[in-house]
């Protein structure tokens, strides 16, 4: 049982089904570790690099020609806000992985601007993750990761890398930016895996 803070009652903005420690927001907060990269579309590409050093690449036109989905999902940031029912438009990772041959278990996602984050490959597949270019029917703003970002709604939002550039498949796990800076390696909001060791 935790310690009661005398006189604290809380506001209890209940938001349906929130993971522990989260509160509901209606706006869209922005969190990142440095300035916002700007990536011109004619130089944009997305790549998957396999453990066998094979690279699959998509230009912006090729990406936009893939079958689109519009997932509506809840997102949970480790800084405690959650936003429910956000709608995105983009391509399921399953589509990108159709022709990728791999036995790797781990993925290191990397971004324009140098950001990285790691997760087990299976957390990107089977309809669990997307590369998206729109939010709420509008082109994704640079500060929210535009032109394209990853969305992995079942993990804390830092795993949903903004300005995504590629995914490196690895036989061994390789911690990314926040994972090396004291945050949890996996980041399940329902188990409150915020920091290393949680």
């Amino acid at each position, binding site marked *: 049982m935790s310690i009661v*803070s005398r006189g604290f009652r809380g506001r209890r903005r209940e938001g349906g089904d929130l993971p522990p420690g989260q509160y509901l927001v209606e706006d869209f907060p922005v969190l990142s570790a440095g*300035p916002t990269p700007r990536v011109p579309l004619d130089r944009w590409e997305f790549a998957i690099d396999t453990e066998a050093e094979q690279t699959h690449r998509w230009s912006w036109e090729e990406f936009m020609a893939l079958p689109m989905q519009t997932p509506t999902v809840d997102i949970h940031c480790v800084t405690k806000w959650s936003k429910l029912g956000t709608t995105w438009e983009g391509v399921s990772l399953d589509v990108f992985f159709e022709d990728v041959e791999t036995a790797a278990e781990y993925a290191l996602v990397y971004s324009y601007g140098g950001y990285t984050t790691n997760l087990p490959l299976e957390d990107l597949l089977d309809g669990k993750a997307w590369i998206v270019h729109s939010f709420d029917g509008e082109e994704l703003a640079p500060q929210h990761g535009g032109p394209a970002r990853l969305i992995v709604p079942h993990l804390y939002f830092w795993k949903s890398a903004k300005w995504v550039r590629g995914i490196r498949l690895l036989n061994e796990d390789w911690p990314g930016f926040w994972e090396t800076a004291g945050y949890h390696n996996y980041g399940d909001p329902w188990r409150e895996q915020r920091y290393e060791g949680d």
Partner: protein
Amino acid sequence: MRRRLAWQAARLHEIRAETATARTLVLDVPGWPGHLAGQHVDVRLTADDGYTAQRSYSLAAPADGDRIEVTVETVPDGEVSPYLTEVIEPGDQVEIRGPVGGWFVWRPESKAPVLLVGGGSGIVPLMAMIRVRRQADSRVPFRLLYSLRDEDHRYYAAELRRPEPGLDITYLYSRTSPPGSARPAGRLTVADLAEGGWPADFAPDCYVCGPTGFVEAAADLLLTLGHAPERIRTERFGPTGD
């Protein structure tokens, strides 16, 4: 072995008014392991029926043994900050865990010049860096650009008024400048950063902290001035963006 960051009981030792809406809380946390300037703690409040809320607050000063400081700005209609600035009294308890964050930190061993750019309560972790610099007798040159609404919203006013060798401070008022100021009140501009900051070829480490819109704008202006993205570290105090 990885130490799990456990929730620890913290007792309010003392509370100091910084402005009409901001308070510095001095807390005793038995067994506090120490921290770096720029790190934060998570504060958890529990109501008597078990309802809890948690938020992050930057550490405002180097640790003094088991004693730590945070500075909290009241967010009107907020859930946690009004409790911390208006309700809590010395002797009351909250829970904290930390220190957290290993990126937005300044270490006194570092030799690069430092540019601090703070907006509103974003001054808090920057103040921790200034205090650590002083405590360590570091001679690394610091420049602080502090954007604030008006003089009444100035944190740490007395302490920052004392001259400190190697620390230059520029106040940038966004709503009302004090009488006689040359700079009209307004948002941070590229000229402010060019005048009050360091030239990009000095390769300073830049720390930008404040509300999202402020951080976004300041980081973009630093890029415009030629600062390398990897030298610009940002900390955004959610939840609301501009």
